[in-house]
């Protein structure tokens, strides 16, 4: 066990970890905005707004993240008309992918607030927007928070996949090192440890949030399954368990 290689290459790998964190945070913020937009569309009474949103959400959640990354790589320069860096393509892919999940989380969060709350806020004289801002949204956000942290964890782990388009985040940095020193046990063991520590800590936070803001079946709607998770396709055709907020 030659831990020397890890120590020697630590600065380089930590730079990669920095990028991983940046990618995760930026994608999270971006996909929250996008997800909120799509959640609203999804809940819209007009079918011509609702159905494109449903299609987008369902299809993107059914496709592997690697495929979305490839798509973003081919598609983005075409859409923007000019050059793109792998980092930008990676962000585009991650936001594109995560938005669909966030849309579902946000939608479930909004729907978890009983009608009565909105009605009561109107009854005491608040306008629709005021009601939203002071009554509904704060509660919805609290309900969503465990699921949001779960999605962040999934996103954090998902950044390891942008390795294939050459982004030098943590996993690729570790790979570049291993490609030079060939100490797979040590390097990949180290990588596994780092991811575990980070994600486990975050999952403890998520569990704490869930305990504090416990809602029957949670505003999140789905537990963090499989990293690259969920199948709206599935939800659409089967809705059995009455406890699932469908």
């Amino acid at each position, binding site marked *: 066990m030659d831990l020397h290689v890890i120590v020697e290459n630590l600065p380089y790998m930590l730079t990669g970890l920095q990028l991983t964190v940046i990618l995760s945070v930026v994608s999270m913020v971006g996909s929250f905005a996008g997800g909120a937009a799509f959640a609203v569309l999804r809940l819209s009474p007009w079918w011509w707004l609702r159905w494109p949103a449903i299609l987008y959400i369902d299809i993107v959640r059914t496709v592997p993240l690697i495929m979305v990354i490839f798509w973003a790589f*081919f598609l983005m320069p075409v859409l923007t008309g000019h050059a793109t860096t792998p980092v930008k393509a990676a962000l585009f892919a991650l936001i594109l992918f995560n938005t669909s999940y966030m849309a579902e989380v946000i939608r479930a969060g909004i729907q978890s607030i009983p009608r009565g709350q909105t009605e009561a806020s109107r009854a005491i004289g608040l306008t629709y927007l005021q009601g939203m801002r002071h009554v509904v949204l704060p509660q919805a956000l609290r309900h969503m928070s465990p699921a949001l942290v779960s999605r962040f964890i999934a996103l954090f782990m998902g950044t390891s996949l942008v390795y294939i388009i050459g982004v030098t985040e943590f996993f690729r940095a570790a790979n570049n090192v291993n490609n030079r020193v060939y100490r797979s046990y040590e390097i*990949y*063991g180290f990588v596994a440890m780092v991811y575990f520590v980070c994600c*486990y800590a975050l999952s403890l936070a998520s569990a704490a949030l869930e305990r504090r803001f416990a809602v029957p079946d949670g505003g999140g709607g789905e*537990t963090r399954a499989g990293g690259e998770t969920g*199948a709206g396709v*599935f939800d659409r055709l*089967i809705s059995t368990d009455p406890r699932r907020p469908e």
Partner: protein
Amino acid sequence: MAYKFDWGVLLVYRHLLWQGLVLTVQLSALGMVLSLVLGGMIGLGRRAEATPLRWLCGAYIEFFRNIPLIVQLFFWYFAVGLQAFPAAVIGLTVYTSAYIAEVIRSGLQSIPRTQIEAARSFGMTPYQVIRHVVLPQALMRVIPPLGVEFINVIKNSSIAMTISITELTFQTQQIESLTFRGFEAATAITMLYVILALAIVLLMAAIERLVRLDLRVG
């Protein structure tokens, strides 16, 4: 850059698409079955009476859920040195089993204790309790999230391309590098993934119907 579409490449290279599909299906099917068995056991273990077992299963779940699948695959293939397909199957199974264990655990947990106590007070043996009270309800609760996890297996199988498995996503790259027609390849393969997911959805629906029937009769 003017892009000339050439859907014909899909026809010319259909053998690659087929190979990709076969491998994805093989890898996913094995992953699903094995991780269901393994995850089922760990999920049960998580609810065991003995604390060490409970703790061990809990640790297993947390460990393998919080490490990205690609890291796990690389570990099995490059560090441990297994052959590609076994490494992919083992990696995918271990990773997924952690998630399935959670599903099973929460399914079992959702059965109120009082039901079991009531059943016992009726004089049912532990086996009868499980067979007639716990299992039917647990199965119903567990089928939807299991379906979700199975679809995840299909999606996660794509990661095996990084350890040389020539499944569907690998073929996207392969066709692209042979013909430079990335769009066409990606479109076709995306549709294949959607179809595969739909297959799982239908499968789970059928299973659910079977379980419901059994509930009524049994």
